[in-house]
């Protein structure tokens, strides 16, 4: 057993309670804010020596100096001479600790006087109630980091039952930007989760929405791991390596030539799948893109009518000029045009109970979608999507929406999460548990402002997701600005370095001033954790993720510039067939329009055929090369008759 490093003290003014106690230590004792200590009571209770575990939340230091003026007088007002004093004043290090656990737990009494010891690894497990889920037979511990104090190094585990359900679920991370905390913590936690999530609990995968920067774009590439991180990886029992299974999804740019992602360097394209949706996919989520002014009851009724009766069906009406089969935005626009022209001819104000103004409004709004979400929504109706139904265990699916307009981001988020939810409800997603990571929660689920579709979805996941196995890992800079029900439903919360302004908001009032100060000055790689088993927040260190960081990746794999159509086709097809060359592409596509070429490319990428060249070429209509017609022999020009009345 280690030596005592302090003694519990209590006075009438500063008494100990069942939840808080005070102790003093030697000046050079390795105790600080966040240190876990153990108090051994002096008197047994029902035959058992009480052990109290606490975490230091406040520290005080003072001397026997009655007033600062005495020090000034004592050194004649010269601070430099103070260092020459033969004796240092008697000084105290007095700490306040919040109780983590008392053993025995009943009767719950004020903390008794006793000696204070630095908690060892076994003590930390008991103090944080980790012993309940690290015991043989439970094994639901997921390493989150290493607690360090004095000579003690203890792995801190989260309980998978409280991180991914069914007991509690969801995780929220707060921290200032630019300190590589939020994204790094999630990357590290996913690696730990994939390693330690119990096999008997089923399969697990993650869908990460990359909403800004290239941070999540190189998860499959190894990054630099410092020696200190190596030691942490070893302690935590996780191999320092990039994710083995990662799949990327990104829509095209507005021009449709290149993928709109930081990962569009040719060397990385083999792992990037285009994300394109057609009319049907978008109409289901029209509400996401249309605000309340757009979607009144009448407009909603018309959109429903179109979805139910027009899209993907043979539609005819006596007033229309022809039968319509609407499969794309282009088809839909033609249908609208026909309807409106027919109404004009009839001079009617309504058609099938829909007023002409409503029809014009809905046409206008829906037509806009393909423009606002260009690159994602295709006129052609081609669909390239996440592999719903065949999600794989321990795989990360990254959806890169960083470069998209807000509308497109919202649409992608809403549709993907809805589809994930549907599949999880039907138990046919391919995995049993799914983590959805969303950064910038301030933006997607703000505490104030209008109620958006995306916010409603996030609330729904936060409140009901755990029953489905759908778990939200969310991050933001300002927790106080996120909807209370989203963060409130997060069973586990992580805090990186915090902005002092944020710390002054009421949500942090439960933390001691010293803990708040520590939060404002946390180093990279340090986190404060709140977890249902921990009665007080705990500080840990986690290793830098073993994946390539965004900045490094974007330097090593620079984003491709806009390229010509031929080059774009080459870049898209070469990962499928390395023998394809630019001259071959130019020869095959020479006679076709840009729209046809892009459609052929999209179809080929979607099909991923064995014979890429043949498949790609087969997408084009047959065109017989034009042959030069023989020039007719020019006849001699007859001279005008002399008596020609029109001659001049």
């Amino acid at each position, binding site marked *: 057993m280690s030596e005592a490093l302090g003694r519990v003290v209590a006075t009438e003014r500063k008494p100990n309670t069942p939840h808080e106690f005070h102790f003093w230590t030697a000046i050079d004792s390795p105790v600080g804010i966040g240190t876990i200590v153990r108090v051994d009571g002096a008197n047994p209770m029902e035959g058992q020596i009480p052990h109290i575990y606490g975490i230091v939340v406040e520290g005080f230091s003072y001397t026997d100096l*009655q007033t600062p003026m005495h020090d000034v*007088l004592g050194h004649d007002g010269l601070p430099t001479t103070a260092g020459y004093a033969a*004796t240092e004043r008697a000084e105290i290090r007095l700490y306040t600790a919040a109780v983590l656990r008392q053993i025995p737990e009943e009767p719950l009494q004020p903390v008794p006087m006793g000696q204070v010891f630095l908690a060892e690894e076994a003590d930390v497990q008991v103090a944080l109630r980790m012993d309940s889920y690290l015991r043989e037979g439970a094994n639901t511990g997921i390493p989150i980091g290493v607690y360090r104090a004095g000579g003690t190094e203890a792995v801190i585990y989260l309980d998978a039952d409280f991180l991914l359900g069914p007991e509690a679920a969801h995780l929220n991370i707060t921290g200032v930007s630019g300190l590589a905390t939020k994204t790094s913590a999630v990357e590290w936690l996913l690696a730990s989760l994939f390693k330690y999530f119990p096999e008997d609990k089923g399969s697990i995968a993650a869908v990460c929405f990359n909403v800004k920067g290239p941070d999540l774009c190189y998860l499959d590439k190894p990054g630099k791991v410092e020696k200190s991180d190596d030691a942490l990886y070893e302690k935590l029992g996780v191999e320092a390596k990039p994710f083995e299974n990662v799949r990327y999804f990104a829509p095209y740019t507005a021009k449709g030539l290149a993928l709109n992602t930081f990962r569009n360097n040719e060397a990385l394209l083999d792992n990037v799948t285009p994300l394109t949706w057609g009319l049907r996919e978008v109409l289901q989520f029209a509400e996401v893109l249309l605000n309340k002014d757009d979607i009144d009851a009448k407009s909603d009724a018309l959109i429903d009518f179109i979805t139910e009766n027009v899209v993907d069906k043979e539609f005819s009406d006596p007033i229309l000029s022809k039968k319509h089969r609407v499969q794309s935005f282009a088809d839909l626009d033609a249908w609208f045009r026909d309807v409106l022209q027919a109404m004009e001819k009839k001079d009617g104000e309504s058609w099938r109970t829909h007023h002409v103004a409503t029809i014009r409004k809905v046409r206008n709004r829906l037509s806009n979608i393909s423009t606002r979400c260009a690159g994602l929504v295709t006129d052609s109706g081609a669909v390239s999507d996440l592999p719903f139904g065949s999600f794989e265990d321990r795989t990360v699916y990254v959806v890169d929406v960083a470069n998209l307009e807000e509308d497109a981001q919202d649409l992608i988020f809403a549709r993907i999460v809805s589809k994930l939810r549907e599949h999880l409800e039907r138990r046919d997603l391919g995995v049993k548990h799914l983590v959805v990571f969303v950064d910038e929660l301030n933006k997607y689920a703000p505490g104030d402002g209008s109620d958006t579709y995306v916010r409603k979805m996030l609330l729904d996941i936060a409140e009901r997701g755990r029953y489905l196995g759908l778990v939200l890992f969310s991050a933001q800079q300002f927790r106080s600005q996120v909807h209370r029900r989203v963060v409130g439903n997060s069973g586990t919360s992580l805090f990186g370095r915090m902005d002092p302004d944020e710390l002054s908001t009421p949500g942090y009032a439960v933390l001691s001033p010293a803990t708040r100060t520590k939060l404002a000055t946390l180093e990279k790689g340090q986190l404060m954790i709140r977890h249902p088993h921990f009665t007080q927040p705990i500080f840990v260190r986690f290793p830098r993720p073993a994946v390539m960081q965004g900045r490094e990746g974007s330097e090593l794999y620079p984003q491709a510039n806009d390229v010509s159509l031929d080059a774009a086709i080459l870049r898209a097809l070469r990962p499928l067939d390395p023998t394809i060359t630019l001259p071959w592409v130019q020869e095959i596509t020479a006679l076709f329009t840009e729209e046809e070429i892009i459609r052929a490319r999209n179809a080929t990428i979607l099909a991923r055929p064995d014979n890429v060249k043949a498949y790609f070429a087969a997408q084009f209509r047959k065109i017989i090369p034009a042959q030069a017609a023989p020039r007719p022999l020019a006849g001699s020009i007859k001279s005008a008759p002399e008596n020609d009345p029109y001659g001049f």
Partner: protein
Amino acid sequence: MQVGNSSPDAASRTAIRLLMDWLPGASAVEGSADLDLGARADQPQLISAEIVEGETLGAIKVPGVTRTMVSEFGAFLDGIQKVRMIGRHFGVPLVLGTTGAAIRVRVNRRLVTWGGRPPKLEQKLYLPLRYLPQLSESLHARTPRKYGQFEVIDTSLADASGAFPSEHPTVLLERAMRAVDKHRDSLEDELAEAWCASTAAPLFVDGGISRNGRVASSMNAIGVIKSHFTLYVEGDALKTVVGLARGERSSVFQVTPRSRSEVMSWYLRLREPEGHDALWGLVRIEMSKCDNPTERADEISRWVLAESTPLALPDGRWDKMSYGIRDVEEFLRAIS
């Protein structure tokens, strides 16, 4: 005579319960308080002393006094006493005395308790057994003479002239206080002797060193006296002493008290006296006799001056008190 007022502590309650069991008619004193020999029987006096540095007593500027001078004192010795009248048996005061002494050594500029000899702390009953015959009889057969946890000291023994103290309560109380005082001195002497026998570093002793022959002859014990009931100067010499400026000392003289050991001594002004009384910041220092009193007095004066920071405030004697001595007092107060 009263210096503090506090409710009875656990020891006082235990002691009075014991006494009330053995002494029918004894009663507790409500609101008993610590007593002090503030009003001393000794009258302030001037005594001439033999000058051993020069012909007449002069003021000498201590050489080498700077802000950066270093003190060589390795430890500080002081004692405490608490005298509490916990009860009375008719007019006879029943006194509980607490005495303690400790040496605090300086390690890395911080003071810690000397491990060579643990601090002394004792609680005894100071009773005039001559006037408490029931107790006297019951104690007669006991060795040691103890009641419960408390040793009993008889304060009614005859003095050197063979006279017993009168039964006057004030006389008996003063006898008790002097006995406590003496007991404290003996504890301090015991520690000082142990230090001088085992350690080479100079010891800063609060008070004189002449009581104990071994201590008085040790080069390691330096006594610093803050009270001046007796001033070892007369006439012009007195004017010289009260006129000392900060950093000045008097010539070294020899103190030869009755029934005590001879030591060398001098006065030293620690703080500028302007605006204060004549004895402000004035201490008298005692050291063992030596062949080079001038050099030694200069050196020790520099050490004592260096010990004048940090201030011993909020102690009222801070003008003369070293911080190290205040630390010992606080330590003893904490454990007593």
